[in-house]
């Protein structure tokens, strides 16, 4: 098993005919992901790659195919609108890949999702991949993952791939590799992801890739200490980031002396979570503490 979805989950893609959407839809299909529909207003009735029916609205797509989850590749101005639409149409899982979404759009969308019991992953995230389910909802490279017992949560993209690649090379396959995104307001935060992994019996060890800004890692540390018995290791990016400067991700900023890598490291270590000094140390650290 894994978290959030299985190989049975029916998935649709909003913005499937766009530049990014079509590129990644092909990759997702190629991996074997159960994509049942695409949505692009005005393209209803077309077929994507000869097999995926395209609809004008998510509602139409859900009615025709029973889709339960949506992956969103629409431009920033329409991203929140796409999340609203997916939730309104009954999707219980929405993964928003779009980068550059206005923060207040996400603030507005959150209670709408809460009222409908919808999980959002992202925005501005690579999504996730469940290698054992051949389910990829997002843009992660498929060639670096392999099925296995390790769960991975990250606020980052390529840094995640770096660690996943190392895990796979070390023979440590993954249940789910999840990139939650680097924006200040995201649907699934560290804590939400931790709780999901905690509830997944297949996940026997966990890697958390954090970065500067906010206190998600600190709160995650508390949760791990209080609840989790499986081995957890971590890495925090941004030790050398100067205060007050946004490091790419809107959320990656040390402000008012809070959200530093040192603080996060301290909190994690005091919760019994070893923190690697280098990305390359993550896997050896995990192997060291994991009594299989």
């Amino acid at each position, binding site marked *: 098993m894994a978290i959030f979805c299985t190989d049975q989950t029916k998935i649709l893609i909003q913005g499937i005919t766009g530049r990014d959407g079509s590129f*990644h839809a092909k*990759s997702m299909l190629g991996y074997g992901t159960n994509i049942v529909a695409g949505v692009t207003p005005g393209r209803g009735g077309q077929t994507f790659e000869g097999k995926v029916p395209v609809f004008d609205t998510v509602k139409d797509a859900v009615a025709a195919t029973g889709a339960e989850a949506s992956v969103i590749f629409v431009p*920033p*101005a329409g991203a929140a609108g796409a999340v609203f639409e997916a939730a309104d149409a009954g999707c219980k899982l929405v993964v928003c890949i779009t980068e*550059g*979404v*206005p*923060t*207040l759009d*996400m*603030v*507005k969308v*959150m*209670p709408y999702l809460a009222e409908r019991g919808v999980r959002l992953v992202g925005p501005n995230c690579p999504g996730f991949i469940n290698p054992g389910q051949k389910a990829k909802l997002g*843009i*992660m*490279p498929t*060639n*670096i993952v392999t099925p296995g017992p390790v769960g991975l949560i*990250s*606020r*980052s*993209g*390529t*840094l*995640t*791939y*770096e660690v996943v*690649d190392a895990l796979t090379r070390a023979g440590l396959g993954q249940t789910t590799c999840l990139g939650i995104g*680097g924006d*200040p*307001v995201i649907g699934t*935060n560290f804590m939400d992801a931790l709780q999901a992994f905690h509830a997944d019996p297949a996940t026997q060890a966990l890697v958390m*890739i954090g*970065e*500067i800004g*906010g*206190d*998600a890692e600190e*709160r995650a540390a508390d949760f791990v200490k209080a609840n989790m018995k499986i081995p957890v290791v971590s890495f925090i*990016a*941004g*030790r*050398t*980031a*100067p205060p007050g*400067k946004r*490091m*790419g*991700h*809107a*959320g*990656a900023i040390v402000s*008012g*002396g809070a959200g530093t*890598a040192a603080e996060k490291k301290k909190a994690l270590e005091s919760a019994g979570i070893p923190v690697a*000094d*280098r*990305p*390359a140390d993550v896997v050896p650290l995990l192997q060291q503490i994991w009594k299989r």
Partner: protein
Amino acid sequence: MNIHEYQAKDIFRDAGLTVPPGGIATTVEEALSLARTHGLPVMVKSQVLAGGRGKAGGVKFCKTEDDVRTHAGNILGMDIKGHTVRKVLVTPAETIAAEFYLGMLVDRASRRVLLMASAEGGVEIEKVAVEKPEAILKHAIDPRFGLLDHEAMAVALRLDPDVKRARQLADAMQKLYKAFLAADASLAEINPFIFTDQGVGKAIDAKINLDDNALFRHPGYAALRDLDEENPSERMAREADLSFVKLDGNVGCLVNGAGLAMATMDLVQYYGGRPANFLDIGGSSNPDKVVNALRIILGDPNVEVILFNIFGGITRCDDVARGIIAATERMEIRVPIVVRLTGTNEAEARELLTKTDLVPAATMDEAVQKALELAGK
């Protein structure tokens, strides 16, 4: 994007907040003229995108025209935390019977806009947060209903039990929220919000940070950007749509992905070096973007080596390698370049690099170590 106090005050005015009048001067003469227009005494306030202006001597009370002459003269041209003061706000000085802090920001934990308010106004709120956190009242605003009358009033009555003043405070909070939403802000602060001796509430300072992601909705805000305040390399990066932060080391870093870029900087430091910058070139292998990135980094005379750290992911490494090679052929490069490429078609990419001066590396660690050697560290 950060904007100046006088610009933030305009946004506050549009939302209905009471803000004292004032004008911007770039010379002592203009400051004097404004002081005459608005009537003495006035405050002369440096307009730079840095905190602690008061402490740095950049905010002065002027009782006489001589005061204006002296202080405006001193402040214009002054350096505040690396920012040169090019303009001052001249605004009537107010009598202050009481002062408060009112602020809003996007709160990650509640995923809402958070109202923060304190009776400890006029001092650095970060300091209050550390030394006396209980003095800051907080209320997370439900975006569905906004900041309701009774919610604002409950906070206001805790700041000031006088009902007339509490009503003004509550009203200011609601208008601050309106301004926050209208501007797509990520932070908005009034510090201090004062009451004059006559009991009139006013926002005498103003701070707004705008959400860069929302600037597309506010075409007018482009004019608010103070190009003088931007580091030239950071401006070039913004115009080239690259995430870039200038640092003071000698290892120029070009990385795809913000997290990996930070980790690369950290690794440079881990091996005893000093990164020259943070730079995320994104997922693209477009030679133009690489050229722009190289130009920005090479504009820094401290840079002694360039380090590409690219995790190929879905884009093919040989494509990225071709992009880098094309870029380096289009310009003069005065320093060695180390390239680490991992992912799909990684072997082909390394093959391509062997035909060039570029130094290949298989891992992050190897790349950083080679770069530091080449930097003559």
